């Protein structure tokens, strides 16, 4: 089956096809799921090389459990976020947080180069600020505000209550504001009083 047809299938269906030995499903799942797993790992770890190791390990686990996957019991993405976070937390406990590599060169075109640079600076500043947060706060903030998940799903991923998720994200955001406030001028914020 061609990849564009595969793109209409849900994760569960694709995984079932993969478990049955469908190599096109393997390629479709790789392209669909790997970017999210890799990005999540990179944000939690602040290190793209380590993110590759973690993402590869997570997807290997997915390939291996595919035949036992029970459709409808859990979302594939929820399972992936959970396994990714657990592996990242194991690594973070074993080492100090690293820093993201230099962002790639900006591309031509809209928005303007200046606006793009400001955006990249802010993205990099946020990465650095996130790296300074305690692990669980960082995980909750990333899942809520960068992955766009709701509190109930985050609660399932982190194995805590939705209220605990709210508490973690609130504390995480206060800490981020405190860290980023010290870099207002550097990041293009102009003080209205001056």
């Amino acid at each position, binding site marked *: 089956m061609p990849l564009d047809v595969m793109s209409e299938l849900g994760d569960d269906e694709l995984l079932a096809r993969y478990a049955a030995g469908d190599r096109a499903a393997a390629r479709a799942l790789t392209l669909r799921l790997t970017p999210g797993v*890799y990005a999540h790992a990179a944000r939690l770890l602040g290190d793209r090389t380590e993110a590759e190791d973690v993402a590869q390990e997570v997807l290997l686990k997915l390939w291996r459990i595919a035949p036992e996957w029970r459709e409808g019991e859990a979302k594939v993405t929820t399972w992936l976020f959970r396994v990714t976070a657990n592996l990242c937390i194991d690594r973070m406990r074993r080492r100090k947080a690293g820093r993201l590599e230099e962002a790639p060169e900006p591309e031509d075109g809209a928005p303007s180069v200046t606006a793009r640079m400001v955006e990249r600076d802010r*993205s990099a500043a946020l990465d650095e600020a996130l790296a300074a947060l305690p692990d669980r706060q960082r995980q909750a903030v990333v899942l809520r505000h*960068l992955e766009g998940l709701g509190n109930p799903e985050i609660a399932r991923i982190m194995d805590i209550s939705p209220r605990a998720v709210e508490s973690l994200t609130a504390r995480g955001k206060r800490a981020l504001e405190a860290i*980023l*406030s010290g870099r207002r001028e550097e990041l293009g914020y102009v003080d209205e009083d001056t």
Partner: protein
Amino acid sequence: MSTKTPDHNGPDLEEFFAAARANAPEPPADFLTRIAADAGAEIDRREAMSSGGGTVLGRLLGAFRRHGVEAGGLAAATLAGLWIGIAPPSGVEAPLAALWGDEAETSAALVDPVSAYDLAFLGD
């Protein structure tokens, strides 16, 4: 949900989150190739397992199915050796007892009749 800071002198976090979402780390192309290769290798592994099974007996039967008479003959000889090791015929017990004494029966039963060479050969 608003992420505006209550402190008007502080940064608007939503601007940072939006910037970070727009600059999500992207996996390199060769990394995607590696992941796809892992997925394919896992299919290969499962197919190999299902055609032969993971146990010694399963591998022997799998070899019989895959390679026909030659491997089947080896499998039969190996199984016969296994049986002789577990329950040696009376004709074998007497010479062993003469050679190694009364413990020969026990010793013979402990010998693994399936050598590493046999297993490696069947695994190919």
